[in-house]
């Protein structure tokens, strides 16, 4: 078991890649704190994990609120005594032509996908400095490396996450805090509409979509001691899409 007695806080932990990662972390011995805006899904998933005899706690929080983020960590520490791992994963995205993108919509996307990631990372670092170390995995995207039409705000924010990851990693490397990012390609989650799946598979050199479980395995590697000499890395898990 790679995460025996570790405590992992996962934002966007109620569904998708966050939930799949929580499942894998629990099977590797971790206690998980599921942070999400969606209370219904979050509570149901907490119950599901507890039914498997896992230690899990759901916390409703908006990662763009400094108070909510601080409260999430407080509750995690009250429940489990510490936070060793943070999977900084919550995010949103929508496709829309940029000339029609309202400024409010731009700000909302960047607020969640970049500011929110910073706020969670900042709180994590504060706790990890006290504890003497830890690991953070940010969810960026392959669109932190390449562009695409119709996703200006999302892509700008994800590019920001890639360089935020590098910069924070360099700043805290000597304090035993490792910070890496996961950059998923096209993944088979409900975010991708059924009618797009075939075309996106065909566009990927492996001729298939990635699976949420495959993202979870990459996150486990980055979060565990198996990646002890890696920091600042943005690991691209896209079946080869961005190499084209």
């Amino acid at each position: 078991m790679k995460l025996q007695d570790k405590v992992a806080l996962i934002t966007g932990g109620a569904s998708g890649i966050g939930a799949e990662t929580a499942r894998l972390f629990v099977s590797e011995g971790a206690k998980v704190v599921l942070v999400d805006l969606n209370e219904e899904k979050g509570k149901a998933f907490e119950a599901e994990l507890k039914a498997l005899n896992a230690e899990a706690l759901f916390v409703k929080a908006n990662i763009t609120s400094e108070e909510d983020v601080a409260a999430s960590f407080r509750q995690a520490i009250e429940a489990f005594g510490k936070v060793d791992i943070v999977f900084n994963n919550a995010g949103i995205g929508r496709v829309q032509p940029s000339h029609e993108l309202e400024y409010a919509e731009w700000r909302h996307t960047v607020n969640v996908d970049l500011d929110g990631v910073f706020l969670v990372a900042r709180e994590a670092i504060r706790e990890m400095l006290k504890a003497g170390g830890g690991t953070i995995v940010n969810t960026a995207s392959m669109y932190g490396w390449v562009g695409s039409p119709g996703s200006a705000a999302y892509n700008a924010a994800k590019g920001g996450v890639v360089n935020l990851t590098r910069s924070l990693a360099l700043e805290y490397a000597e304090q035993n805090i490792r910070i890496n990012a996961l950059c998923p390609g096209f993944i088979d989650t409900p975010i991708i509409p059924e009618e797009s799946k075939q075309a996106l598979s065909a566009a990927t050199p492996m001729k298939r979509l990635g699976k949420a479980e495959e993202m979870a395995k990459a996150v486990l590697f980055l979060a565990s001691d198996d990646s002890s000499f890696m920091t600042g890395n943005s690991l691209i898990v896209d079946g080869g899409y961005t190499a084209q």
Partner: protein
Amino acid sequence: MSNRFDGKVVLITGAASGLGQATALQVAKEGAKLSLVDLNSGALEETKSKIAEAAPNAEVILITANVADEKAVESYVNETVEKFGRIDGFFNNAGIEGKQNPTEDYGIEEFQKVVDINLNGVFYGMKYVLKVMKEQGSGSIVNTASVGGIRGVGNQSGYAASKHGVVGLTRNSGIEYGQYGVSIKAIAPGAIMTPMVEGSLKQMDPDNWEEVGKQFVEPNPMKRFGKPEEVGYLAAFLLSDQANFINATVIPIDGGQSYKY
């Protein structure tokens, strides 16, 4: 998840020391059958005895071969398939550091020698292993590039050219073979304390190489050399089924060093 390599066959070049040896030990502990290739047959025996200690049940064959010799590469791949019937993971790792001096003094022969081993050797390995993996419909290849394959280091023209070449090959062939369920990735180790890096430090100052090493890692964000076993963990992850969707990409393992410049 502790036995990611039960029933799997892993082929490793440059297995007599450093990253190759560390990776061999890691995958052997997790159940792999191993075909180990190196030019140095004596040192290869040392890897075998270390495996016998760490994983007494591991099946291991040793093959002495020069990766720059295409015929020898064809033979090591054939021998592996004859013995084990398949190849699930290929750590295409053998390489040399070459001389260190300015480009105008590097020398044509030295350049050719370094490219022959570090780049042509990797290409030959892929040529023969990909045929096997394509027929199987599965497999993972991990090529050893270097931070010197994604950044300029200086005084290493042959090494830099060959390692940048390995990154290019990885991207190119990953695009081609993904459709067959085969993934190809490169790792880019930075300052890892291997016999090869020790050799480089001794080139800089034979009498004071340990002091030179300390200065060498001073700019590293983690302020230390990586250990071969840390690269072994990464290579094992990438060779396993856990990393099937990681393809045609290069993964630095350098304590954050390449993100600084």
